[in-house]
């Protein structure tokens, strides 16, 4: 019998066994699966979910001054801000802050551009839904108080 013929078979067989050893070792180690939703997923602090408005610590109102820098910075035009000056206030406040999450690419340019750090990323990662509408029109003012919210509710 040819020497290299037998040798090829032997080395081939050995290489196959080496591979099988790797899979067997893996099988005996513990899996790394996180069984979400039975276990909570670890979300890092920097996690970029959809954006949300930051509330002012003093009065609980949104810090946003409705300058529209975020809307201008957005590459996909998914932010719409309207604001007005409440009576007696120095700064404008948002009356309308709508995010179209369906076109948002989570780039963070709006957060970057905000002059008063009034936008931040949400750490909400379980965002799946059955309908488009809640995502196409995310009313960010819902979570944060605004001097105009009650007024808006009247409409």
């Amino acid at each position, binding site marked *: 019998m040819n020497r290299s013929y037998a040798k090829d*078979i032997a080395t081939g067989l050995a290489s*196959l066994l080496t*591979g*099988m050893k*790797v*899979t*067997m070792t*893996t*099988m005996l*180690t513990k*899996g*790394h*699966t996180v*069984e979400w939703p039975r276990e909570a997923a670890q979300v890092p602090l920097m996690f970029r979910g959809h954006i949300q408005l930051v509330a002012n610590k003093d009065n609980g109102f949104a810090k946003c001054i409705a300058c529209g820098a975020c809307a201008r910075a957005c590459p996909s035009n998914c932010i719409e801000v309207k604001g007005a000056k409440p009576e007696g206030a120095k700064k404008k406040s948002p009356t309308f802050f709508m995010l179209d999450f369906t076109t948002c690419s989570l780039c963070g340019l709006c957060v970057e551009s905000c002059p008063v750090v009034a936008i931040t990323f949400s750490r909400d990662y379980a965002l799946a839904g059955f309908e488009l509408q809640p995502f196409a029109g995310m009313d960010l003012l819902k979570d944060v108080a605004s001097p105009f919210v009650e007024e808006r509710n009247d409409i």
Partner: protein
Amino acid sequence: MIMEITIVRTLLSILGITLVVGLNAVFVVWLERKVAGHMQYRLGPTEVGPAGLLQTVADGLKLVSKQIIFPRSADTPIFILAPIICLVPVFVALLPVPFSENIQAHELDVGLLLVIALGLLNTLGILLAGWGCDNKYALLGASRAVAQILAYKIPLLLCILPIILLSGTFSLREIVVAQDHSLWFALYQPVAFLIYLVAITMETNRSPFDFAEAESELVAGFHTEYSGMMFSLFFLAEYTYMFVAAAIASVLFLGGWLGPFFPGPVWMLLKIYFFLFLMMWFRWTFPRVRVDQMLSFGWKILLPISLLNFLLTAGVMAAL
């Protein structure tokens, strides 16, 4: 009286075989997914039933409830016939398989021959499936399946022959009995055992020889166009076929139901699932062999070695 016993026996056999086929499929698919999962740092199915055991049942129910799509240009009779031709022979092939001294659907003097012959029908089913659905991927898959038959079938037979020489019978039960007072034949015939292992992997279209359905090349190979229940019939046939091949392997080489402490059927099943596990282990470790490489492997390595092994065995037997 004898007539009635025969009828009862036949009915029991049919029931038993159906149960074996069904439960085996449920268990093996679950096992395969578990093995695959754990070999890949995953968990496999966990949700349905204890440890996900009923996952296959749920999947089966889903498949049954799905619409069967007939391609417009398909050859409908052949399209329908193909999965049936795949499945029925493996049912029949379970007839002569002995699970213990007494548990056997039908004792045949030529049981081994029957199983080997029926094994070829599986390829016919694949060919029909590939041809009937008028899909180019399916046709390629089917032609691959047909092209490889001889490459594994001849070494397979040449591996069985030494066992026939050692035991002197074609009956599966007799072969096990012949191992009762001697060692298991795997120890007499390690080369034949190894080649048989490779050959049944080829025969059952399992990875690394799964070119008939080669996912990354042929989408799903011969069953590309099959959906719903007809797809699951192929699936059922594949896993039952694996079961039969493993059962024959344990009868031929590992002494069938023989073993200490446990009753016969337990040993038999243990051995069968040992083989099935081996085949899963292969599948989840190796890349796929190319068609021509498999052919040259079959003809240039398996065939000469198994032939040599057979001649050697025959020579030694004659000398003794």
